[in-house]
């Protein structure tokens, strides 16, 4: 019975997830056919594709992981108090606030990212204000900077961080926190020794749900960044569509996926929570 239920879905996932990944691995070691058209490749098991792809794009790889890490930390810093407030301080407003966290999702994420571009742009609100206050100089811009890209990523993945945090905070029995207070722990100690450890599954799930899509993202870098803030996603995209260099794009995709899986495995082991999905 369980196998019958699994069969159609797994057949689908096998055909359109497992096989494509296997095919991607195969493409990644191909080389151009001698004298062929652009976009024609043959299998030659050229493993040096990986070395070339990586050394040519070290910088973008590094930037992807640094940006994704920064966005994850910032999102955690913003989302944790938010989730905490909704779980413990919102009273009757709890459900309303929860809906409000998800609500921005409903406006297409591209529209919101373009909106940020305009808000942070020359004609937006922040740049003239900050200039008038003398906080930034006349020549400083906010768009086309690393700051804008990281800010946009933090923004776009914030609900992915807030919801799992809320889910694990909400499950905490408030009496455990009261008990800690009864045992003369102050607010900070209670948080450090009781609330935070109990909310770790949410922290792990939220950071993963933010970090993984952020590391592969290229939309924020394309809209809010400049050629100097290109991430690995931008490189893969242009290799596919502009240069039609499938093997390099495949090698880069595969390296990205492997790097993320390794990081995620180490992280889950260290955090000690297997209860993720």
């Amino acid at each position: 019975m369980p196998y019958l239920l699994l069969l159609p879905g797994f057949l689908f996932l096998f055909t359109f997830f497992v096989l494509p990944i296997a095919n991607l691995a195969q493409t990644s070691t191909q080389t151009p056919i001698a004298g062929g058209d652009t976009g024609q490749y043959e299998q030659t098991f050229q493993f040096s594709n990986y070395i070339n792809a990586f050394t040519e794009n070290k910088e973008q790889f590094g930037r992807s992981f640094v940006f994704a890490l920064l966005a994850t930390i910032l999102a955690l810093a913003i989302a944790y108090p938010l989730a905490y407030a909704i779980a413990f301080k919102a009273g009757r407003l709890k459900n309303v606030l929860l809906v409000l966290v998800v609500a921005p999702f409903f406006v297409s994420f591209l529209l919101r990212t373009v909106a940020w571009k305009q808000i942070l742009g020359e004609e937006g609100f922040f740049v003239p204000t900050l200039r008038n206050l003398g906080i930034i100089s006349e020549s400083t811009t906010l768009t086309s900077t690393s700051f804008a890209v990281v800010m946009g990523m933090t923004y776009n993945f914030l609900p992915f961080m807030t919801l799992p945090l809320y889910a694990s905070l909400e499950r905490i029995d408030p009496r455990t926190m009261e008990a800690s207070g009864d045992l003369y722990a102050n607010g900070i100690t209670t948080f450090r020794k009781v609330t935070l450890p109990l909310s770790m599954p949410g922290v792990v799930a939220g950071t993963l749900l933010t970090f993984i899509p952020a590391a592969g993202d290229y939309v924020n870098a394309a809209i809010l960044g400049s050629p100097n803030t290109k991430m690995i996603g931008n490189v893969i995209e242009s290799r596919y569509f502009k240069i039609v260099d499938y093997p390099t794009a495949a090698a880069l995709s595969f390296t990205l996926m492997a790097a993320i899986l390794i990081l995620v495995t180490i992280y889950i082991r260290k955090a000690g929570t297997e209860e993720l999905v």
Partner: protein
Amino acid sequence: MTHQKDASIPTIPVKARISRWFGRNLIRIYAVFGFTYLFIPVLYTFAFSFNDSGKSNLIWKGFTLNNWKNPCGAPEVCSALGNSIKIGLLATTFSTILGTMIAFAIGRYAFKGRSTSNLLIFLPMATPEIVLGASLLSMFLVFHINPGFWPTVIAHIMFCISFVVVTVKARIASLDPRLEQAAMDLYANELETFRRVTFPLVAPGIAGAALLAFSLSFDDFIITNFNSGTLTTFPKFVYVSAARGIPAQANVIGSAMFILALAIVIAGQFVGRKTKVAK
């Protein structure tokens, strides 16, 4: 008593009282800032849907209702929206059916290969979208299938399945097994128990999963961009027109989607409350 209390108030300096108020409400103040951050671009999108902007919606030029009266006024915007809705509905239907079946198998049965199954569900979620999109496109190209409408639908079903499984599985796990035992005690057979007890209890989870699948599909850009070829979806339309300024009609559609989705959520809450009361 009252006299004493009155006398004690001036002994707390104003400064200390303010800082105490801040201390107590710090987390609320922080939450207000968090929500402001979340809503700045939403309000911006909404405001600029009323901009009398002409072609490029970059600078505020005055209030108008014309964009709302004529949301299809900009070329391509409504055909892009139509494509997104069609793809979303197809992807939601198939991924909800396939995902719910998997969720029941994993949530209800102990069988050989259960942890492998969990891994197969987790992996698509742990793979960056760009890798999912690029790998599918590579495979379609190998089989000489041109990117377009159906490849996009297939791609969307693929990445939505895992999210449906996770959502429905959580609902199944939270069921009280005693309810089903009670049904069996009352001589319901397995099929009847499923139809009259289990399924109605899991249904809200399935509805939630379907909503999630639709919003994921509707909003997807990266995977779509790889597999849709010349077909334009709504996010693709926004991305392409971002360079020369998106038309205000796109803001109208974004804002309308926002209002519609909020209405659905609020209506769902009311229905949920009513059925709870009825029980």
